[in-house]
């Protein structure tokens, strides 16, 4: 009968590799961020709240690019807008819509501040427009 414990190293090797492969493949299961998910963590974690996960794809179902990138003045590069909670409360950036009129208001902190700790500001998805070496 096949008993791995009584076998030599030669037959143990495949079994050990099998176990290792399972562990490695499971721990490296794919990260499935949606294309154009944006992490904003320039200020959030330093201020003691979760990083913001901004779903760009969600917003473009409801607004054309020009609304945020022309009317609201969002620069088109991640990290180039100094978005603070004070400015938002003042009706700028997200606060232009998230005011209980156009969209739900700012009492729902955790809908935006919903990210895992330690995330870096940047755009996620298959490809990024962040500079050389992304492709």
């Amino acid at each position, binding site marked *: 009968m096949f008993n791995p414990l009584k076998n030599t190293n030669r037959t143990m090797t495949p079994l050990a590799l099998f176990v290792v492969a*399972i562990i490695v493949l499971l721990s490296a299961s794919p990260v499935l961020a949606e294309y154009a998910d944006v992490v904003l963590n320039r200020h959030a974690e330093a201020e003691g709240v979760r990083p913001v996960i901004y779903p760009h794809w969600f917003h473009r179902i409801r607004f054309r690019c020009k609304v945020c990138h022309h009317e609201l003045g969002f620069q088109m590069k991640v990290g180039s807008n100094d978005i603070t909670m004070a400015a938002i409360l003042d009706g700028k950036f997200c606060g232009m819509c998230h005011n209980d009129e156009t969209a739900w208001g700012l009492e729902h902190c955790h809908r935006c501040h*919903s990210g895992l700790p330690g995330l870096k500001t940047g755009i996620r998805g298959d490809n990024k*427009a962040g500079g050389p070496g992304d492709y």
Partner: protein
Amino acid sequence: MAIRSKKTQWVENKLLLFVLLWIAGSVCCFVPAANAKDVFANDGLHDPQGPSFNELQRPDAAFAGFPVDSVGNKVRWVQALRDGIITPRTNIVPDTTIKILDMDLILGNTGDNAYVRFPHRAHTEWLDCANCHPDPFKEKFGTSGIKMGAILEGKFCGKCHGAVAFPLTECARCHSVKPDTFRGKFGVQPVEKH
């Protein structure tokens, strides 16, 4: 029992190893698929402990019924807009003007690749003129110095394509005009009926 040669043993071991790794691979392909029922639970971004985690709309729900693409969000955004499947707002400020420009350009400085047909219409249905002009694209044709390398670095077209619009793996969607059959002039093209 016949004594197996070392070579036979070696082959058997390799076969065993192959079969086991194959099983391991299959198992691991299915386990994340089971977890991926809620895409946010395993996306490396959202914190499942967040108090509003369950309130957030998931992309699979948001994109249900949208025309399907093979890349990016797997949504044909321009088609979704034209077919009226989505009706994104054009403005918040009441006096913003909407300017749709139906004008194609053909860019011919493409090396060995097909020429690029750039449709203003598809872009102005989403964007304002000021989003692209005069930075990064000067209005005068042929003066912006567009290079594929710069696009790959996130400049010019790469500001959006590769980040939020269809990615740069889709060469032929832009490089769509075959040089050996193109008889026109570069730059502004006669308006086509859509």
